[in-house]
């Protein structure tokens, strides 16, 4: 015992001795390759809560792009500076004010003179901004492959080593038929290729095949090799034509009631800056989330204060597996428009790409005034399906979309006054639903930022491409008030709190009555000179949920269900390259006088230098049931942002390594295993694994040309 004690003491003493805040070096030359670790670290610091993968990838891409081609701090307007989410409203105003008063900013040292620009902020910004004016006017339609273009191939293979039921031989059922099985092999294949020059062009394609999907070539069935194929070609800044995309793209405009971003940050860790409206425009779609918003052609034209975005799209959608026989030849019954993207079993394959969706729309924006303080726009989109869409009738979807076409239209207005941004958007659809979002955010003082948002989405409102702020996905049937505050009293210390108070005027999935709810979060964040990082969070959510009852009763009884969770993340830099992370999660779920608790503790060791990175983790978890499951971020291969959830009891360990072999080739490998203590099998249905272990392996290769 004393020997162990001695080792621990030596360890902590050693940690203490090296824990002196280091002096930062300005203008430190980073390696020409993107410091993936640092961007991931940055993202993890700003958005450490559970987030959806597809959005995280989008955000990572934007940051990576900013790193590759930094923003010119001297010519960037308010909208462009907003992309740097490290800056608060007041800091952005101060940059613009400083430029108006003193002209050009010549170097990073000059940033110190701008009010509110402390050293840690300048360090965080350093890689994403530039001071010189290296602008070459792009021209022509064809891409020019030169050294300033970013050209890379990505290939990934992943697999669960244990055999899942879907990959075993089928059983013969009583009536002689064979039971359902997955069509393909258990490997998860992914390939992406992209050539890109920020502000000029982008060309790329993505191929993906989920485990269980087979490779086939069948153009009449819209199958071109792997199950998911996506491509795009885009050009930018050709005079008045700001953007032209052919292929797959996404469109965001206003606050997302009609056209929303892939990544909706909303109620995560950060209560203020994530509510900022994303810059309007088209972006090529490069994610692997199989619900591609638009596939067709889009264009943005800009002249003076006016900007017009317009597009046409024609894409085939899959419906979810539960497809019943059509009652008559005109009708078409489908489960859910947003399917999982999985086409493995005969049932899933039957619903693959069987619905054609055509849409066309526009957004006309105006930005009067030289300072860009006022922005407004009107927008509309019309969507038409080739068959009548009829959802399977359930208790809660009385107002869900039914029909063959719909038009959404609306307008938005943003106004900046001082350090406060006031924003609003209103939208309606042709079924009679309306949605309203109105709010403000900004600085109340030097070190305090606050936000306030009111939303009211009627049950009849729905949009196929929207993704605005809300308690639930799908901006429908919700009314709520959100308030957030962020206070930075000392350097390195941030206190954040937010509260959301909402109600659902109509029934929802698993809530068989109109209901109320609230959600609140308190976070304390402390950074000490790049050596120590502490993050503590307390969160409390209450929503109603049906209590288990008679299976086919016409209505179940919903009761309030309260979930409280606490988490702590402590990161220590033992040396410059060696980090130790300790993560703790705890939660308690209570409903109807019964409660369940969950707990997780993870210890990571991470070593990274310019060439190698090795991260290893050992974690134990113990939760009473699924409601008290615990989420924890894991270091994974590049672009794979997973925050897996664990429930029941067990152990989780992984090793992730990365090697930058040279400036062209980089490799990542992750081996992870979860071992459940009390289970004889894991998962259910065709994903069921006999035994109590589940092992994931992922291998990724990146080639930069």
């Amino acid at each position, binding site marked *: 015992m004393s020997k162990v004690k001695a080792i621990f003491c030596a360890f902590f003493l050693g940690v203490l001795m090296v824990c002196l805040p280091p002096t930062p070096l300005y203008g430190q030359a980073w390696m020409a390759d993107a410091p993936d670790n640092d961007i991931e670290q940055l993202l993890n610091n700003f958005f450490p809560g559970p987030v959806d993968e597809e959005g995280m990838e989008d955000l990572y891409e934007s940051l990576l792009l900013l790193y590759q081609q930094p923003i010119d701090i001297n010519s960037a307007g308010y909208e462009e500076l907003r992309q740097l989410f490290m800056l608060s409203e007041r800091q952005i105003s101060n940059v613009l004010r400083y430029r108006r008063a003193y002209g050009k900013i010549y170097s990073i040292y000059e940033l110190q003179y701008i009010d509110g620009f402390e050293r840690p902020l300048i360090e965080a910004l350093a890689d994403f901004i530039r001071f010189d004016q290296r602008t070459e006017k792009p021209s022509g339609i064809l891409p020019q492959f030169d050294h300033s273009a970013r050209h890379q191939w990505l290939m990934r293979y992943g697999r669960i080593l244990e055999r899942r039921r879907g990959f075993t031989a089928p059983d013969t059922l009583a009536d002689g038929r064979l039971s359902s099985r997955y069509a393909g092999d258990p490997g998860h294949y992914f390939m992406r290729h992209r050539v890109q020059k920020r502000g000029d062009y982008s060309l790329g394609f993505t191929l993906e095949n989920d485990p269980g999907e087979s490779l086939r070539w069948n153009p009449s069935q819209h199958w071109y090799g792997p199950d998911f194929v996506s491509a795009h070609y885009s050009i930018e800044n050709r005079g008045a034509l700001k953007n032209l995309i052919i292929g797959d793209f996404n469109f965001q405009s206003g606050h997302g009631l009609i056209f929303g971003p892939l990544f909706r940050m909303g109620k995560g860790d950060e209560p203020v800056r994530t509510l900022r409206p994303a810059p309007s425009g088209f972006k090529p779609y490069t994610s692997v989330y199989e619900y591609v918003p638009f596939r067709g052609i889009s264009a943005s034209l800009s002249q003076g204060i006016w900007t017009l975005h317009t597009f046409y799209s024609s894409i085939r959608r899959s419906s979810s597996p539960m497809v019943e026989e059509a009652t008559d030849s005109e009708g078409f019954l489908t489960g859910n428009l947003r399917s999982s993207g999985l086409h493995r079993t005969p049932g899933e394959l039957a619903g693959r790409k069987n619905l054609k969706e055509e849409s066309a729309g526009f957004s006309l924006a105006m930005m009067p005034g030289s300072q860009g303080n006022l922005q407004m726009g009107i927008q509309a989109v019309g969507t038409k399906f080739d068959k009548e869409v009829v959802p399977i009738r359930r208790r809660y979807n009385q107002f869900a979309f039914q029909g063959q076409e719909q038009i959404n239209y609306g307008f938005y207005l943003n106004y900046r006054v001082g350090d406060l941004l006031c924003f609003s958007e209103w939208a309606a659809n042709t079924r009679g639903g309306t949605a309203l979002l109105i709010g403000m955010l900004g600085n109340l*003082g030097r070190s305090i930022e606050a936000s306030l948002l009111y939303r009211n989405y009627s049950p009849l409102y729905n949009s196929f491409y929207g993704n605005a702020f809300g308690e639930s996905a799908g901006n429908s049937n919700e009314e709520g008030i959100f308030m957030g505050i962020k206070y930075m009293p000392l350097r390195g210390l941030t206190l954040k709190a937010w509260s959301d108070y909402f109600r659902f005027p109509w029934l929802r999935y698993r809530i068989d009555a109109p209901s109320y709810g609230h959600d609140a979060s308190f976070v304390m964040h402390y950074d000490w000179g790049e050596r120590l990082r502490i993050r503590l969070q307390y969160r409390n959510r209450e929503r109603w949920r049906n209590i288990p009852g008679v299976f086919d009763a016409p209505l179940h009884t919903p009761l309030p269900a309260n979930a409280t969770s606490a988490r702590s993340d402590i990161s220590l830099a033992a040396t410059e390259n060696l980090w130790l992370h300790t993560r703790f999660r705890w939660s308690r779920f209570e409903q109807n006088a019964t409660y369940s608790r969950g707990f997780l503790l993870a210890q990571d060791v991470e070593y990274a230098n310019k060439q190698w990175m090795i991260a290893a983790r050992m974690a134990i978890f113990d939760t009473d049931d699924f409601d008290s499951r615990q989420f924890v971020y894991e270091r994974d291969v590049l672009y794979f942002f997973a925050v897996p959830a664990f429930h029941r009891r067990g152990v989780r360990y992984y090793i992730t390594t990365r090697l930058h072999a040279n400036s062209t080739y980089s490799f990542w490998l992750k081996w992870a295993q979860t071992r459940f203590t009390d289970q004889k099998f894991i998962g259910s249905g065709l994903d069921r694994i006999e035994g109590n272990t589940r092992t994931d392996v992922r291998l990724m290769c990146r080639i930069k040309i």
Partner: protein
Amino acid sequence: MQRYFLLLLISLFSHLLYSQSADLHLGARSLGLANSSVTLSDEWSIINNVAGIHGIADPVIGIGSKYRYNLPELSGTYLAAVLPWKEFGLGIHIYRLGDALYSEHKIGLGMTHQVGFVKLGAKVNYYQIRAEGFGQQSNLIFEFGGIAEMLPWLTFAAHIYNLNQARLLDYADERVPVVMKSGIALKPEENLSVLLEVFKDLNHPVQYRAGIEYGVSGLCSLRTGMQHYPRMPFFGIGLRPGIFSIDYGFGAGWVPGQIHEFSISCTFIKGQ
């Protein structure tokens, strides 16, 4: 029988009103801050925390009305007057809630004094409940409060209501609840105050409240607050044209309902 029925009605009402503790906070400024006003020092402190009336330089008179849950039967009107006298502060307030069927009246007299950097205040209230067919019950309720301005940006305050545990009914041990609250006020910036309060009514679970008041360059004050149980956000706005002070507060709740409050006060500057 009627007695018991009305008793039930009163207890139902008291659940809605959170045991008559709603009338422990008056003034639209306080409502806009989710009633986290124990640390504040203005004319409405005569009700919120009697020690707060100390230090007001000129006499102030204010009136206000509170409208709750869309029920006129639960609306209240009040008047408050504060004036300094020698080294003390004096205040009086009158309050009425309800209608002919059920009503509450309260008259309070308070006095404050400063000891070091701590302001202390005491108040005596004459409180009367009347319910039709039931008669009326009146008693004296004492309250005591203190505010300590420890640093320019940090103030601490505490208040206790119904020190004497006044009895509500003669034949049963039904008492007016004892209420204690304590809170702090932080001033991180010149025009920004953050208030935090813990409120405990003996008959109900503990309640936490937070409020923020932001002064927009001398024009108006914007207020917002949140109480944790029952969860409800609050908003308020205040204007100060000349000698008048106009405030409006709004509690945005779907359960049990919305609360609106409007108050005006007038300061009599000496020499005018």
